[in-house]
């Protein structure tokens, strides 16, 4: 068990920098998810922590010890690869015990720890098979087992679920969560899937173009996105984001339509400011069919034409036209609607977000 700390961590390939001096403190036993679109530098960061990629500048500390120039084997970490990277010429048992064999552990010790790990992951029946004889989910479990057996200070996961089908992915996600509850070690988990990040992590690190956009608990990054990028990245379906100009206490959209300026931002903006207005699908709904309103809500009613509906059973996504484009809204307890219907929509402006159109930073005080 250990803390991990990244200080001004930089990676460049020649003149091209892919990670721009990021800082991150990971607490002992914390589950951290690095999330972001492809090419944002999250996997490179993980590989630098693992020691598979040399760092260009900065410091990596694991458990308070600087590991900048240590080879992977001296960092006491283990890693689960996206491709699983099981040794095809070895049985599951040999795969699990490989690190102990290299370390020169005694046979009894090896058997005990392999049995322990295979018990946790339900691999007992598969120990004598080879990776080629396993299904995707089983391979994934063996890869995790191999990581557990090492009893590392830090677990590193590099998009471990992205090769599985949707159903198995959900299942393995739960298993990883259970596993963390059992093993209680520091985890750094890379994914491009924000749902995985939200469900698993204690804290989420959202990266973009080699910079950290925001670090926070799932709740923080969802409710209080610091930048327009985070707002658009976290949440599914994504937040409705539209540019507007502040005009006399109102938001003026390009189409000429207006909305009242949410009161929580009044102090921070003035007439003429260019902003990006954001509202989650949950906070815009056909009147009477949304999340039940609390005390301090600031609901604005507006009638909009429906363009498309996507029924999901317990809820329906309603696309309604405003400011010349479709806004997604989430209708709970759905009523039948069809394209062309004009529906009275409730916009809960107390939940709205406002970002500077120039910097993309939040305008929340």
């Amino acid at each position, binding site marked *: 068990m250990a803390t991990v700390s990244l200080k001004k961590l930089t990676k460049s390939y020649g003149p091209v920098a892919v990670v721009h001096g990021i800082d991150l403190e990971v607490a002992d036993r914390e589950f951290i998810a690095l999330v972001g679109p492809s090419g944002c530098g999250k996997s490179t960061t993980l590989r630098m922590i*693992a*020691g598979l990629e040399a760092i260009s500048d900065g410091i990596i500390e694991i458990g308070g010890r600087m590991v900048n120039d240590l080879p992977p084997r001296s960092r006491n970490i283990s890693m689960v*690869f996206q491709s699983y*990277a099981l*040794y095809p*010429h070895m049985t599951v048992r040999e795969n699990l015990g490989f690190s102990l064999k*290299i370390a020169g552990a005694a046979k009894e010790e090896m058997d005990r720890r392999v049995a322990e790990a295979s018990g946790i992951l339900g691999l007992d029946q598969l120990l004598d098979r080879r990776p080629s004889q396993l299904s995707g989910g089983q391979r994934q479990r063996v890869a995790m087992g191999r990581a557990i057996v090492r009893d590392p200070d830090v677990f590193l996961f590099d998009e471990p679920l992205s090769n599985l089908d949707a159903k198995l992915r959900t299942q393995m996600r739960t298993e990883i969560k259970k596993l963390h509850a059992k093993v209680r070690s520091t985890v750094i988990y890379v994914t491009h899937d924000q749902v995985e990040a939200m469900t698993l992590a204690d804290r989420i690190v959202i990266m973009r173009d080699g910079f950290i956009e925001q670090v926070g608990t799932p709740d923080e990054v969802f409710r209080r996105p610091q930048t327009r990028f985070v707002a658009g990245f976290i949440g599914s379906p994504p937040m409705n984001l539209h540019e507007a100009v502040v005009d006399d206490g109102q938001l003026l959209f390009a189409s000429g339509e207006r909305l009242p300026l949410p009161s929580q931002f009044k102090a921070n903006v003035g007439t003429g400011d260019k902003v990006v207005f954001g509202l989650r699908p949950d906070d815009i709904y056909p009147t009477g069919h949304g999340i039940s309103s609390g005390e301090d809500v600031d609901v604005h009613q507006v009638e909009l034409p429906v363009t498309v509906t996507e029924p999901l059973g317990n809820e329906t996504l309603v696309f309604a036209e405003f400011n010349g484009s479709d806004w997604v809204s989430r209708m709970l307890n759905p009523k039948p609607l069809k394209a062309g219907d004009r529906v009275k929509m409730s916009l809960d402006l107390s939940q709205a977000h406002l970002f500077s159109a120039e910097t993309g930073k939040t305008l929340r005080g």
Partner: protein
Amino acid sequence: MDQNSLHRVGNKALGIVHGIGLFLAMLVICLPGIWIVLSSLRPTVEIMAKPPVWIPRDLSLDAYIAMFSGVGQGGIPVLDYFRNSLIVSVTSTVIAIVIGMAGGYAFARYRFRAKSAMFLGLMLTRTVPGIALSLPLFFVFARLGIIDTHFGLILVYVALNVPFTVWLIDGFFRQVPKDLAEAAQIDGCTRWQAFWQVEFPLAGPGIASAGIFAFLTSWNEFALASQLTRSINSKTLPVGLLDYTAEFTIDWRGMCALAVVMIIPALTLTFIVQKHLVGGLTSGAVKG
């Protein structure tokens, strides 16, 4: 006839045509070999007969007995040739494989300057016909005083085989996912251990096949060996075949017998190694 039975008959006919085609192909491949074995057992009259005598009437092991019965009684120093062939082939193969592994691994795993130019350069050496090299090589070797030595031949065969083994082994290392070596390093291996514990066993079948190729090339090579060898000090089996040619006659039967003696070890080795050439060993390493 309805369509189903029509297709059934069609499939059957196709099967028969396949069978005949395969038989003919096998015949073309095997007939020379069979003919060599037969010729080594038949008297010269029968070998040279026109029209050819297809079914042998008179089989004997005389040629083999003569071959081993020493100089002066129709024999040739076959054991010396065999020893030379073995030393030269095995040594040059081992060296070519070691260099091929190092080179192939480097080409497969590392990025460095002028990589593709170097790779192409290696391949280009193969475009020069070996026989074109024989005269320049002869002069150089003569100056160096390594004509008629094992060392000289080994040098030539290593040079001949290295581009090929590098190319072949590069391909096999490429098939071993990079993740595996990285996983091994995280599991506590040094770079060196990761290679021997994980990458080498997985590329093993490929390396073995490169080894067979290199061995067979050296074992069967004639053009250069005939120029660079002189005596029983270094003459290899293919060159030894020439012992059966005299000024006016060629002892076809003896030559065929020696050819059989040459083929047997090569065949045995190939047979032993091919059992280990199990393809698809890397399947299951990674998703896909």
